[in-house]
């Protein structure tokens, strides 16, 4: 039921950590969710999709990994660093 609060906080952390090119450059937000974290995965995925589709994000994708225990954290971000492919 509180997955939207969790998703918003994940959005805030991602925004803070996004680096010099800002939240719009974030391609992936990787989240680890423990079985005992009290978070319903499908509901969190749904909420994160909404949060990461809206500004300041530009359609970042959430990757949720289930783990044992009560961990609930943002593991890493993938950002487009603006350099051309080589």
């Amino acid at each position, binding site marked *: 039921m509180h997955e939207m609060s969790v998703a918003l*906080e994940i959005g805030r952390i991602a925004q803070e950590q*996004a680096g010099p090119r800002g939240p719009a450059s974030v391609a992936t937000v990787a989240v680890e969710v423990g079985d005992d974290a009290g978070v319903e995965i499908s509901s969190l995925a749904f909420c994160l999709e909404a949060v990461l589709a809206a500004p300041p994000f530009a359609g970042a994708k959430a990757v949720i990994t289930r783990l044992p225990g009560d961990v609930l954290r943002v593991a890493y971000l993938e950002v487009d660093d603006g350099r051309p492919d080589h």
Partner: protein
Amino acid sequence: MAVRTIDVRERVMARNDALAAEVRRRLREAGVVAFNLVSSPGSGKTTLLERTLADVGEELRIAVVTGDVQTQNDAERLARHTDRLVQAVVTNGACHLDARQVLAALDAVELERTWLLFIENVGNLVCPASWDLGEDAKIVLFSVTEGEDKPVKYPKVFQQARYAVLSKLDLLPHVPFRVERAIAYARQVNPTLEFFFTSALEAEGLEEWYHFLRAQVRRRRTAA
């Protein structure tokens, strides 16, 4: 595009927990004991607090921060029983209180005139379990009109609580609720959970509850 990975490893609750630590620090400094009261809607949190405020509100210098999804009805109900402070937090849809709301509410509470603070959470046995509010302990209420198996259905909140209040005991003759089964279920998820048995309407079991509150306040005041 070239993708760069940024290692974050930040706990989602980190900011809430930092704010909760600040709440805890301020309460400790002021010598205030704080309990976070959680239950499903209608278990009797407000009624227990009404009775407690009327009976020992002055003696124990009780202040209340009460959270509701909508309306300030609970705060108004409680305020009728005390001249002491009752601070309402309307969450506007959110299913729980968070530490930021409690920290903001503390500014309205005169901590130097307070010994005991009750934080009445939003009626909900799921979400409040995930948010530390800076309390000394969580107290979970459930009533004899609910299922005996509440503790195993909502284990997280019962695991986190240090105390449980079984409420509405005056209704026991009218419902099929078996107290010993409820206790057994509760001990299954939390073997050290301490129980109180109350009827706030008929004023049963309240002496033991008040005795406990007095002891908690005394311990904190002598430590301060």
